């Protein structure tokens, strides 16, 4: 969770990731941000986020992203 | 019970749709007279004023009616026909006319004229797609039934008179009776070689249907029908001539094809066209009209009105035409 927040803040400083729950719909993160984020997350957590996983519901909040990461780690 | 409700629902929906459409039809009928031009000249907004001068001819005086596209108004001179044989004729030709336009044009003419013979220039029978032709059929039918579709762009020119209920007063005369004079020469150096070209030779079902309707309409009004194809390097081909030949036979209508046979008229591609083979010029029109005149004399019982004082206006028109175009007579 900590590392995730670090990455997010490094990518887009100034955004209150703890409280924002509609990052995609409110246009806080665009497809470029999602792409950069995905690349970093894949690297950091040794998972493989595919285009199939790039859905608004998986990236709309920190909790959603954390759930995605955990799921992909379990699937191995 | 449920099915009963459903059927009731359909009937209600259907009636709503029918009532809605009926209201639209009524409004179309009411608005159309406002937009229809009040005179048959260009300033009043009429379409193709050249083709609509027949309105101003005395009723029931035009004996031969020619209908077709721009090839026709370049190749047929009614005043020459008058001079040589005393037959009264009019050329109702519109640029890019199609057979649907021809059919409704004939209807228009029949409201005030009673020709004995109707001649159709068949160049317009060749089109590209069946779907476009069906669309054109609908388009022309709509425009004829509700002139609003034809003249809606007059919204920019509407005047108080348009809202009065005086009706149309078509009195603009076209002295050259629908013929458009051109004397310039631009030769067609390839002559009749265009006949070898492989042009689409079938006639769409829609076109054929309306050709039959056209002929029927003429027959119902005691007019005979004659088909003609003037020389046209942009559209002629042997395949097409064959198609027309058999179609004419099937419909039992005489057919003159100048692309195939020039009948010793002296027609010459180097002197008789004004744009390299698409349209004829005055020289070509003279030869074509001469032949048509003789053909009509031999095959039809048309009246020579030259001695009839009631037709004296035609003599005046002839003189004005020749003077205006600086022709010897």
């Amino acid at each position, binding site marked *: 969770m900590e590392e995730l927040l670090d990455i997010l803040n490094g*990518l887009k400083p100034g955004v209150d990731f703890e409280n924002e729950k509609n990052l995609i719909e409110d*246009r806080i993160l*665009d*497809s*470029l941000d999602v*792409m*950069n984020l*995905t*690349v970093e997350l*894949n*690297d950091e957590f040794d998972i493989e*986020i*595919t*285009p*199939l996983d*790039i859905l608004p519901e998986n990236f709309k909040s920190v909790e959603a992203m954390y759930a995605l990461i955990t799921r992909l780690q379990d699937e191995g | 019970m449920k099915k009963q409700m459903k059927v009731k*629902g*359909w009937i209600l*929906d259907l009636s709503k749709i029918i009532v*809605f459409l009926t*209201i*639209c039809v009524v*409004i179309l009928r009411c*608005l159309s007279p406002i937009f229809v031009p009040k005179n048959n000249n260009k300033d009043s907004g009429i*379409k193709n004023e050249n083709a609509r001068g027949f309105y101003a001819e005395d009723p029931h005086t035009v004996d031969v009616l020619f209908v077709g596209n721009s090839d026709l108004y370049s190749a047929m001179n009614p005043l020459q026909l008058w001079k040589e044989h005393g037959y009264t004729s009019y050329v109702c030709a519109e640029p890019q006319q199609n057979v649907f336009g021809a059919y409704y044009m004939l209807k228009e003419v029949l409201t005030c004229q009673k020709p004995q013979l109707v001649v159709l220039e068949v160049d317009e029978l060749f089109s590209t*797609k*069946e*779907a*476009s032709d*069906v*669309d054109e059929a*609908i*388009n022309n039918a*709509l*425009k004829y039934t509700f002139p*609003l*579709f*034809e*003249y*809606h*762009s007059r*919204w*920019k020119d509407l005047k108080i008179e348009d809202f009065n209920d005086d009706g149309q007063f078509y009195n603009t005369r076209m002295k050259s009776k629908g013929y458009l004079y051109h004397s310039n020469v631009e030769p067609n150096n390839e002559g009749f070689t265009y006949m070898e070209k492989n042009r689409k030779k079938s006639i769409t079902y829609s076109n054929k249907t309306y050709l039959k309707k056209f002929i029927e309409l003429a027959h119902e009004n005691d007019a005979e029908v004659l088909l003609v194809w003037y020389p046209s390097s942009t559209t002629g081909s042997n395949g097409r001539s064959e198609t027309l030949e058999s179609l004419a036979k099937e419909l039992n209508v005489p057919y003159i094809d100048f692309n195939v046979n020039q009948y010793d008229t002296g027609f010459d591609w180097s002197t008789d066209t004004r744009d390299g083979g698409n349209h004829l010029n005055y020289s070509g029109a003279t030869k074509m009209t001469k032949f048509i005149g003789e053909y009509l004399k031999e095959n039809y019982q048309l009246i020579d009105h030259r001695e009839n004082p009631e037709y004296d206006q035609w003599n005046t028109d002839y003189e004005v035409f020749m003077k205006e175009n600086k022709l010897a007579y």
Partner: protein
Amino acid sequence: MGYTTYVYLTLFLGITFLLYTVFPKKYKWTVLLGASYLYYVAASRLWLIVFILMTSITVYIGAIWIDNINELFQCVKKVLDREQKKAFKEKLLWQKKMVVGLMLLINLGTLAFLKYYNFFAEVLNIAIFDHFYASIPALKLFLPLGISFYTLQAISYVIDVYRGKYKADRCFGRVALFLAFFPTIVEGPIARYDQVAQQLYEGHSYNYVNLTQGAQLILWGMFKKLVIADRANMLVNHVFDDYLNYSGLSVVIAIVFYTIQLYTEFSGCMDIVRGSAQIFSINLPENFKQPFFSKSINEFWQRWHMTLGSWLRDYVFYSVSLSSFFKKFNRYAREHFNEYFAKLLPATTALFFVWICNGLWHGASIKYVMYGMYYYIIMVIGMFMEPVFNKIMNSLHIKKEAKCFKLFQILRTVLIVNIGMLIFRADTLSSAWHMFFSCFHNFQFDWSIVGNLGIDIQDVYAIILGTIVVFVVGIIKEKGIHIRETVANWNIVFRWTFYIISLFIVIIFGAYGRGYDIASLIYAQF
């Protein structure tokens, strides 16, 4: 048989609707399939059907093949140990990639050949062969109707199956209908299989609300196309076809009117198409979301031609940026460049591919490639300069939320888009260049010239009035209000009067028939 012709609106839609209503639910989809192929033949040439059939068949087989490979894995993996499983999985993955590659080769290859052969031949000739007094000959090639659209739909289907988004469809009819559906075949929208295929297949019973609201949507589209777009077309052609003789305000007006024309024509066509589908209770995706209220170019391309944008995002952008090659590139960038650069470099590289594709998709010429590059460069500059802009705004004490600033952003976007439209419409890059500078030449606020640009002054007023109507409707929609539903709740006298007046506005003020040239659909040449 264009979407605004009588034959389509009355005969074709009418008969298809009647048959669809009368057929039993299980077979209603066959009416749509038959109508779609009939439409294809009527609107195009009979023999060109071969291409869409080929795409349908190859993609149908390809998807099933991929599914079979997956199934094979599922069966076999139980008897393998961990090492063998991994190796087998890799081998099968490679096989699946080959199938996708084959699909792309056949379908994208056909599109590429028919559409771009002459363009690439010319480029190669100029670059290489002319120097050797040789040349690749140009070919006279036919472009099958809708190939740029149905090919993208087909590719998205295969790639989705490859990615495991859904299973392959074993029903060929459904796949064929998905690709050939007559409302989408000419200009899109580029629909996804999971959005639309089941809707097309399941057969919907007659629904009065959808029938009438679909018809109303069609009427709205007709208004935009016939009253505004076809009218503006005349002025635009008048100036652009003769651009050397115009300068100053005339050119600016022509460019702005072209933007208006393209928007009202394309979105109007989309309305007619979506309305046509709604009559059958089928919901097609939207392509436009009030694009001219965008505050940035980024946002603009998320509101303009949305289905193309999302297709490029899902199948080019993500495919490129999440590929293993890109992973390595990313790592390299992180190690060798400073942090700021390293973050932006992969993104901008991936974007490059997206914009090359966008440009090329629109046309086979340098001009269209430059059109794509124009937007690419603007976006990249925006991305790199973001921190600088932020600093400037902070020092000037400009708030991002301020209304004036938002207005500034919108106007700035409109300006950038209009310049893009100039490139899109001009004959060549050099004419676009010339026209851009001629705007500043002889510029005077002499509005009287507006009557000399090919149409009467009343027609100009009609365009302006029409645009204002579209603008107001845009504002209403931006607020989330569903207009057709709102009107449906009015009392019958008011709403019927509204419908009838709207219908007659289209009939009387439409720029069709006598005195108006017929404007062909701009996007239909793709």
